[in-house]
């Protein structure tokens, strides 16, 4: 049986924050050209005019700034979506002992083994009932093959025959070909490229596809298309990979006598990691977040977190980060026990090795990732940042920082035109008050700063910036680029509210 959760990204956000359900929700992700686009939105957001595929900035503009409390914009987190679905799969083991996820990169279906259940309809209705009570929106189909159940659940429910209000479509034994025939070709779990090519050939439905000769399909599309067809119709077997109830991945070491030596602590952590990694390696899983808890004698436990950008099963990488943390740890007393817990587990990513050279082909991406992990774990993730430009006129807000550890691995959005203006390389954290003598037209003639009085040789401006009223801080400034006698350049502004002058940037 296949249970499909339409717009799972949206459903997951709603179920994880039930208190915010009254808010409209918009989930976005990077689209083509590095621009953020809406991928899913709640009915409230749709009523407001938001549509999937819309630019995020366009969607944001549909709400006034004062109404931001009624809408949430969430970045799509495929990892969290997958994890939530895995949790749901474990919960669904009350209905069937074998529950797995579909094999898509971003799964949104659960597959339940219904072999040997008595009343199939009752079985399916019970599962759907329970899931709806949990707050899930679900469509389900039960068929002889995984492929047929998947296709019918996703594409068949809208075209289903009247079945007396049942929320489950049970495909009769051996009838999967008949049921799938009128459905769109997407119901066969084909890759996007194959679907678009079929559409170009005016093949939209499964029956149209089946009318084409198989030999021609192989030469045009390769064996993948035929495999999908055969799996859906039962000519090829398909295995279900069930989710297991995961034991907490945790290991504790009690010392015979308390110790404070950092090297010993590291060795014990390494030993515990050995044990934990051995348990994970069989499932091709790695550690993405590790929590080490030390229990000093007569003191509260001290925990530190080791976070990685991508999961790893390499002890060397993990221990390097653990040692960086241990170096900076101040222990109030000797440690009598320590616990290592794998807080986030994720599937390992595999890449083909390079035949020549090391690291040049991927632009040193792995090395850079390890650098970010080292820097973030030692200095704190708020100290290792990725800058992003913001479409703001006020110089202080024309950029923002996000921690590299939280930053998704895609390029930031294209440069807003507003920030392509002439700007200094160094911007003072706060504008520095200075005295400026001016000429008749108001442009600066002489600066008085740090007991120096350089004459302004040239100036460019004013560039008027009037903004920020919605932040409660009405900004009205006239900016000038000034070049003094020796060729140095500064960025100064006159505050139009009180005519005071400030140095804001240096063309260093």
């Amino acid at each position, binding site marked *: 049986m296949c249970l499909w959760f339409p717009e799972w990204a949206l459903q997951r956000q709603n179920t994880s924050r039930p208190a915010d359900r009254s808010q409209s929700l918009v989930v976005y992700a990077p689209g083509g050209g590095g621009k953020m686009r809406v991928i899913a939105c709640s009915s409230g957001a749709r009523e407001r005019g938001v549509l999937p595929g819309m630019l995020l900035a366009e969607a944001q503009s549909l709400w006034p700034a004062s109404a931001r409390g009624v809408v949430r914009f969430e970045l799509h987190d495929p990892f969290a979506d997958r994890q939530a679905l895995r949790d749901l799969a474990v919960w669904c083991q009350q209905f069937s002992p074998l529950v797995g996820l579909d094999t898509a990169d971003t799964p949104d279906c659960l597959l339940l083994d219904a072999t040997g259940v008595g009343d199939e309809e009752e079985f399916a209705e019970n599962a759907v009932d329970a899931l709806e009570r949990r707050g899930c929106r679900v469509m389900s189909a039960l068929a002889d093959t995984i492929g047929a159940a998947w296709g019918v659940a996703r594409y068949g429910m809208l075209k289903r025959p009247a079945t007396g209000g049942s929320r489950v479509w049970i495909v009769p034994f051996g009838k999967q070909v008949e049921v799938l025939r009128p459905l769109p070709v997407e119901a066969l779990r084909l890759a996007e490229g194959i679907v678009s090519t079929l559409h170009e050939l005016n093949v939209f439905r499964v029956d149209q596809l089946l009318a084409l000769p198989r030999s021609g399909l192989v030469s045009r599309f390769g064996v993948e298309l035929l495999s999908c067809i055969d799996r859906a119709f039962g000519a090829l077997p398909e295995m279900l990979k069930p989710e297991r109830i995961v034991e907490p991945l945790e290991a504790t070491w009690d010392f015979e006598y308390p110790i404070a030596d950092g090297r010993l602590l590291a060795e014990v952590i390494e030993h515990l990691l050995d044990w934990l990694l051995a348990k994970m390696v069989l499932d091709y899983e790695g550690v993405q977040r590790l929590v080490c808890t030390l229990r000093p004698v007569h003191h509260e436990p001290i925990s530190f977190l080791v976070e990685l950008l991508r999961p790893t099963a390499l002890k060397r990488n993990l221990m390097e980060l653990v040692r960086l943390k241990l170096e900076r740890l101040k222990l109030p007393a000797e440690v009598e026990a320590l616990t290592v817990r794998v807080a986030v587990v994720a599937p390992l990513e595999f890449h083909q090795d390079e035949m020549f050279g090391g690291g040049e082909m991927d*632009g040193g991406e792995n090395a850079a990732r390890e650098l970010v992990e080292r820097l973030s774990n030692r*200095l704190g993730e708020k100290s290792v940042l990725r800058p*992003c430009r913001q479409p703001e006129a006020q110089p202080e807000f024309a950029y923002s920082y996000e921690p590299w550890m939280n930053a998704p691995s895609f*390029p930031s959005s294209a440069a807003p035109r507003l*920030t392509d203006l002439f700007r200094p*390389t160094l911007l003072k954290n706060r504008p520095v008050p200075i005295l400026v003598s001016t000429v008749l037209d108001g442009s600066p003639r002489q600066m008085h700063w740090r007991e120096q009085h350089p004459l302004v040789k040239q100036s460019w401006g004013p560039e008027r910036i009037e903004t920020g009223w919605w932040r409660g801080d009405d900004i009205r400034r006239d900016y000038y680029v000034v070049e003094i006698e020796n060729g140095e350049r500064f960025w100064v502004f006159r505050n139009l509210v009180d005519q005071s002058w400030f140095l804001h940037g240096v063309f260093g």
Partner: protein
Amino acid sequence: MVPIMVSRVSSPSTNELRERIQKIEASHRVARRLISTGFAAFDRLLPDGGLAGGSLIEWASPDEGSGAATLALTVASHLLRNVRRKFVVIDRTGEFYPPAAARLGIPLERTIVVRPGGEGDACWAWEQSLRCPGVAVTFGWLPSITDRWCRRLQAGVEVGGGLGFLMGSPGCSSSAGWGVTRIGVNALPREGTHLGRCVQIELARGHRATSIDLEWDHETSDVPLVPRMGAPEAEYLSAG
């Protein structure tokens, strides 16, 4: 009487030693990758016709607004255009302004800004970044550092193979020392009303220093105008 045989152990003369050192240096130099600054005149000023990969460059300037950082960022953007590796900024003061860097051609999506808390952390972050083969340029300001740290940074950048752009603090003497290529940048007043920038670049070579005047256009950001050669091969007494 038995004659005493004196075995003459040939000790290398100073000239021989010099030759050996030159050979070692020459072989080392060949192995290093040369990187263009993006300015033909600037490349010609440099001993090997470009910046050697795996080296530290100190951009020294007596004045805060001289344009040294602008020039260094322009050179870095030229380099980053040809490689996919990262650009790291060690920004202790928090004054690095990303919109200006982006305008100079720095790809912000490949920029890692590190804000270390103290000097020790700053030196550690510099070393880590320089050692990383995934980083093309490490850029930032460093307070005066000890010879020991300088050697560590030097060793680090040789391992990583990238470039370290150390921005000297205004008014301070060289923040780095041994093994660092020191490029002096002085602002020059510009003729005309155009926003283009004009600086004098000075490079110490042994006891001589050579300099050029470089003028480039801010509007096109990275396309240099034909440089005006100012007192080529002018001799100065070198500070080091």
